[in-house]
């Protein structure tokens, strides 16, 4: 396995065209995905995480469009690529698993027929029934269900079938948009373990988007925390979990009640994400930040290096520790 990234995203910006002018949903995202790597992307609803995935997969449709930056996948620039060239890459080199399998599968055709469509449309030379059965076995569903219609399967099985479909051509990159959000915890857990196992077995890279940070804690290598269209923290998953540098990451982490340890009152993150049409000045998180400082509303922070991660917070800036004796912010969200 070489160490050159298979996906390089540079300064990616996506805008939605609205009657009130363009709204920036994704603003200057940089991301490298190595072969076989599991990248988690977390953030609240409306932070631009799904839009970013769609931009990477070249699935944006008006009013959304890529306003700048580049997406290079296996050495090819994806931005501005024609549909015809994209069709050769889709499913074969990268595939997308959509958010709710309930809606993503066609309710009036059988699972097998949908697999067949994909294989035919992308010119498979293989024996179609055999390959379909193979991927079904991979995800732990009995191939007899190729004859089943989506409503005959449980939610967990439908979601697995979606993943099986994404693996028909054994792509190098699988992009997953909250594949587990419609499932209960037991099905969620078993699906996560399954994805991880398949990934180790087949060696594809995963970009996994979720609003539930705890879900990726044990599965991803790299973690990207997004807020209001910007990356606020990026780094090794373990390091972000153990020592979250950005107050937003810390807030997300502290939003979970724990099943062990003392029962503490939690506050979550009060307030809601900003309107992207008129984002706050300075740091976009400052109106909700528990450790806000006066300069946060005027100075726009960059991504500063802190140990194994980079954080977009003025408190992480190299000059900050020198200027002031830092107050301990870690208690800010626990009452």
């Amino acid at each position, binding site marked *: 396995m070489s160490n050159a990234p298979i996906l390089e995203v540079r300064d990616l910006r996506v805008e939605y065209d609205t009657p009130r002018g363009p709204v920036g949903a994704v603003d200057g995202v940089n991301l490298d995905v190595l072969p076989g790597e599991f990248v988690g992307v977390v953030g609240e609803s409306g932070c631009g995480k799904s839009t970013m995935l769609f931009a990477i997969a070249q699935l944006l449709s008006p009013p959304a469009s890529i306003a700048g930056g580049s997406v290079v996948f296996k050495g090819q620039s994806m931005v501005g690529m024609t549909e015809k060239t994209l069709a050769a890459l889709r499913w074969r080199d990268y595939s997308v698993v959509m958010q709710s399998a309930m809606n993503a599968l066609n309710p009036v055709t059988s699972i097998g027929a949908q697999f067949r469509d994909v294989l035919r449309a992308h010119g498979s030379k293989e024996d179609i029934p055999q390959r379909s059965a193979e991927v079904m076995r991979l995800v732990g569903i009995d191939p007899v269900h190729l004859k089943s219609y989506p409503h005959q399967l449980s939610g967990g*099985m439908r979601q697995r079938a979606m993943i099986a479909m994404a693996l028909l051509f054994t792509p190098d990159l699988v992009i997953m948009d909250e594949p587990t959000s419609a499932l*209960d915890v037991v099905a969620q857990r078993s699906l996560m373990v399954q994805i991880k196992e398949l990934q180790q077995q087949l060696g594809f890279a995963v970009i996994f988007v979720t609003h539930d940070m705890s*879900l990726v804690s044990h599965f991803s290598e790299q973690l990207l925390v997004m807020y209001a269209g910007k990356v606020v923290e990026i780094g090794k998953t373990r390091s972000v979990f153990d020592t979250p540098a950005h107050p937003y990451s810390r807030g997300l982490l502290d939003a979970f009640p724990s099943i062990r340890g003392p029962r503490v009152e939690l506050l979550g993150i009060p307030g809601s994400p900003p309107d992207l049409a008129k984002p706050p000045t300075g740091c976009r998180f400052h109106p909700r930040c528990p450790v806000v400082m006066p300069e946060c509303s005027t100075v726009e922070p960059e991504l500063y290096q802190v140990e194994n991660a980079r954080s977009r917070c003025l408190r992480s800036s190299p000059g900050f520790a020198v200027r002031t004796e830092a107050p301990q912010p870690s208690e800010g969200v626990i009452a």
Partner: protein
Amino acid sequence: MTVDPSVPLIETRGLSRHFKIGGGFSRRTLHAVDDADIVIYRKEIVALAGESGSGKSTVARLLARVYKPTSGEILYQGRSLADITSRKESLAYRSDVPMVFQDPFSSLNPAYRVSHGIMRGLKLHRTELTAAQRLEEAERVVEAVGLTPAADILWRYPHELSGGQRQRIGFAQALAYRPKLILADEPVSMLDVSIRIGLLNVMAKMREEEGVSFLYITHDLASARYVADRLMVMYAGNVVESGPMEDILARPKHPYTQLLLDTVPDPRAPLSVTSETDRGEPPKVIDPTPGCRFRFRCPVVVDECHQVTPTLRLLGPDHTAACHVATADLPDDAAH
């Protein structure tokens, strides 16, 4: 009605609900809930946990009188619901035991301002109020669920509110009836993780300040632990374990409870990805034969499980489980 605190607010005895499935000549029945004994006291938050398809929502609908029980009875403040027949009394029960739904995006009428649902409830259930008092009360409940400024929020349309705000409106609607027990059917599972805690805190506050009991239906044991006093675990239509929250978490008796506990993601816990993950799903219970319904997924199954249906046994103080294999607490453990 005089209130005797020793009488449970709501109690079910052998509550069952079966559904006929298949075509007109089919004799097959789906056992959604079988023989459930549920007790909820005043000012108590009881969590009902289980996977999709375990029958927990059916329990809520039975308690809300959406379904009639196939057998068994529901006692509300000591009185059987089957005896409540007059419109006046049914209305009174509905306002005492309202429901909050899972999906805040489809449970509010998008064509009306959010005040509409709250005001209608007040008009129907609290006829003593004048129009001005109704408005005042609507503002009070909206503020009670943490939405300010209430006067402004009331005149908005649902699409102008975020998911968390809409779900708060759902709670405000229920609160407007001066309820005794709110049936909350997965009220936070559709919301972002960062918003959930806020709603759970609203539930805790409503219990504290308004004295409301809750039946909190969820599949997430961590959130159940955060708000609830007692826990009931359902599997395939049966209550398999019931007891004080902390007690069950510390000493789970039923292997299914153990399985649920193991699946809770805990970012603070050290990394441990075991391949020994359960891949099963709860069965659809159609015309069941005797035997434990969990036996096909159970890691500690014994012969007896295939022949005899386990019943709830007392295995610790106030802690019951329906399992042949589970053992009671040691005497010194159970002493207090």
